């Protein structure tokens, strides 16, 4: 049984989606995250264990390798694809309460910015690490963030921006969110932003990579 979870974590780490997927080459012809998750559930493995002992360790390893520049965006995207395939099998168990997510993370690219690659990467990594993720998409206004956090009290909000022209919108959005729902935590990321900027605009955290967001959430939801 542990063997299945180890295999599942490797499928996530190396981005093996299913049996048919040719990627990664060294795992060609083997079962992927899809088959292994199904088999694990059929053989009675606890859905919570599938999440926390299969998916999460795999996602964590790829997150660390990404931070260390040992893998790049394509590998992380393949891992995320493998993870979301497995999640489809787990979804009913989250709904029934048989498996619990650690908390809720609301993410969006800020007003005026239509870029979504970085935002999607963070969303997928956070989900793969055991959180419920609400993705508000791109070009997201203060009002939308506020409505989402009112619907999901205690959620942490993640703001993304790629452009130097749109990072400035993070300041107003952060302020609006904190005025509307005091105590809401806001974490920011994106190519042009840094820790100094985070402090200047009154956000709570800056992460340079998706794993950093996961680590921040793990502390806040501990």
């Amino acid at each position: 049984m542990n063997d299945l979870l180890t295999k599942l974590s490797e499928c996530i780490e190396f981005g093996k989606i299913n049996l048919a997927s040719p990627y990664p080459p060294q795992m060609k012809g083997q079962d992927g995250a899809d088959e292994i998750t199904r088999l694990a559930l059929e053989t009675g493995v606890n859905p919570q264990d599938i999440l926390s002992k299969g998916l999460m360790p795999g996602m964590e390893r790829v997150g660390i390798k990404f931070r260390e520049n040992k893998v790049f965006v394509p590998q992380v995207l393949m891992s995320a694809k493998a993870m979301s395939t497995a999640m489809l099998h787990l979804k009913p168990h989250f709904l029934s309460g048989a498996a619990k997510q650690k908390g809720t993370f609301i993410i969006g690219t800020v007003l005026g910015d239509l870029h979504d690659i970085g935002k999607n990467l963070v969303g997928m990594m956070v989900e793969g690490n055991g959180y419920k993720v609400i993705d508000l998409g791109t070009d997201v206004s203060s009002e939308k963030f506020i409505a989402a956090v009112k619907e999901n009290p205690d959620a942490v909000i993640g703001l993304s921006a790629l452009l130097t022209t749109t990072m400035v919108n993070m300041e107003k959005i952060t302020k609006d969110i904190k005025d509307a729902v005091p105590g809401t935590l806001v974490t920011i990321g994106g190519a042009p932003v840094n820790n100094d900027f985070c402090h200047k605009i009154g956000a709570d955290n800056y992460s340079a990579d998706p794993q950093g967001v996961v680590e921040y959430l793990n502390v806040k939801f501990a």
Partner: protein
Amino acid sequence: MSKLIQEIQKGRVLVSDGAWGTFLQKKGLLPGECPEQWNIIRPNDVFDIAQSYIEAGSDMIETNSFGGNYFKLKGYGLQAQVFELNKAAAEISRKAAGSERFVLGSVGPTGKLLMMEEVTELELYDAFKEQSMALEAGGADAIVIETMTDLEEARIAVKAASENTGCEVICTMTFDKILSGEYRTMMGISPAEMTETLVEAGAAIIGANCGNGIADMIGIVKEIRKVNAEVPILIHANAGMPQYCDGETTFPETPSDMAGRVKEIIDAGANIIGGCCGTTPDHIFKVHQVVKSF
């Protein structure tokens, strides 16, 4: 008019232009506004930018069409105007360049990922074909495909531009220095990998743009030269990493900082030098003065 590559073969180092995006912003472009729409609604402001770089001594001028592909314009509901907006962009820069300077039609990434099946190869090819043809129709001499991070998307863009226009095709990618000290794009592509693939796809000139400032660009040029001694190299460097102060973003590298590195980057093997985010006509003027002195 002669081709860029003929000028380079004469042994000339050429000067390109500086930033457009940050310049448009200074002229009042609002976050969320489509920059390419200005080619129709505020053509005089776009012309001013082009002209200010020409006056600064640039041998070539880009066009205000970086996000002018079908997919980006669709984000603003302007996908029906791809041809019109790109043609206008090239016409404006042509007017500023006159017949003596080159016009480089700017083509940026689509923002869609092939590997996530957000788009097909054919859809990408068609989008780059449409945009390149419109830029040529407006008077572009060359197409500059820039800020690419995915080699496959870059290759498709180069093919689409070279197979459907008579323009010289330039392609530059955006690299970061990774922890090991090597350079990679966000998608993990090295300068050496880029060089091999893009030259084979039909790019006449390759290089790098954006990034963290001109110092890193010197390392990137050296990496390209290690694997290819011949291909002309174009560099459009940022004025460093943006810094934020009192609601405004500024860039740390001054015109003199940039000009101070020009000799080094020419020695490394660069043939065309210009700026990207945060550079201004003053940067280009200083670069021009250094280049002229050679």
